[in-house]
């Protein structure tokens, strides 16, 4: 029983942290977000320099 509760609590805390991190991430994540939410046009995307 204790093991089960422990396991469940572990899962909850784990996913909880991920969920909260996602909620708190206020950075731009996609082009769509910039164009639709912020109403700005994306005119260029530049890849990282080590890309082949």
């Amino acid at each position, binding site marked *: 029983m204790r093991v089960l509760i422990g396991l469940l609590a572990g899962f909850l805390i784990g996913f909880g942290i991920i969920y909260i991190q996602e909620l708190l991430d206020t950075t731009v994540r996609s082009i769509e977000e910039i164009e639709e939410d912020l109403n700005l046009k994306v*005119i260029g995307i*530049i890849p990282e320099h080590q*890309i082949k």
Partner: protein
Amino acid sequence: MLNKYVNIYAQVNRAVQDAYALLTANIHFSNSTGDLKTVTIISCTPKVGTTTVAINLAISLARSGWKTLMVDADMRKPGTYKRLVGKETQGENGDLDINIREFSNNTTIPNLSYLSYGSGHDNPIELLCSPKFSEFIREARREYDFVLFDTPALSSVIDGALIASKSDRVILVAEMGKTKKASLTRAAEQLEKAQANILGVVINNIVKRDYVKYAESYNYFERFK
């Protein structure tokens, strides 16, 4: 002329080169009337690669055959931190010298000149509001096809907004997963308040996976397959 020669190394990576070529093409699409000449490159927060974008865009424009001037308008950054080293334009009293021909540097890229405002000005804001600066822009427009201003981030000083208000268009540089949505919105508002025309956003340093995804949706990666 005693022009100093500035070494600019062109991007050798094909994918990155192509990305800038596409940005150049987008600028031309927005320039159907042909009066788009001065472009301010700015970011919301520092360290998202504004200077890199400015240099590479300048190279791309120059390579397409346009006489291009890249202006380092960051007067806050000390000289030792500057990416490119060249003769700086500084008049007697820390003034802006508008003699562009004399103060611009030739570079290793044909058609591309580089000019730095230097970092010794007492009051950059006053300088950017002065008639001297307007005169500089008029002069630059006459001499070049495209003039790019590399400016400090909007969050740190107002310089960039002042330059943006005096140029034809503004390009906002952002970084995926790093630039906050709120600061991008604030930057856009700030620029609008300054009566600047935003051409669009350039997203820098996209990771490969995302880049391939977007490049495909832009129907652009097709030819690599």
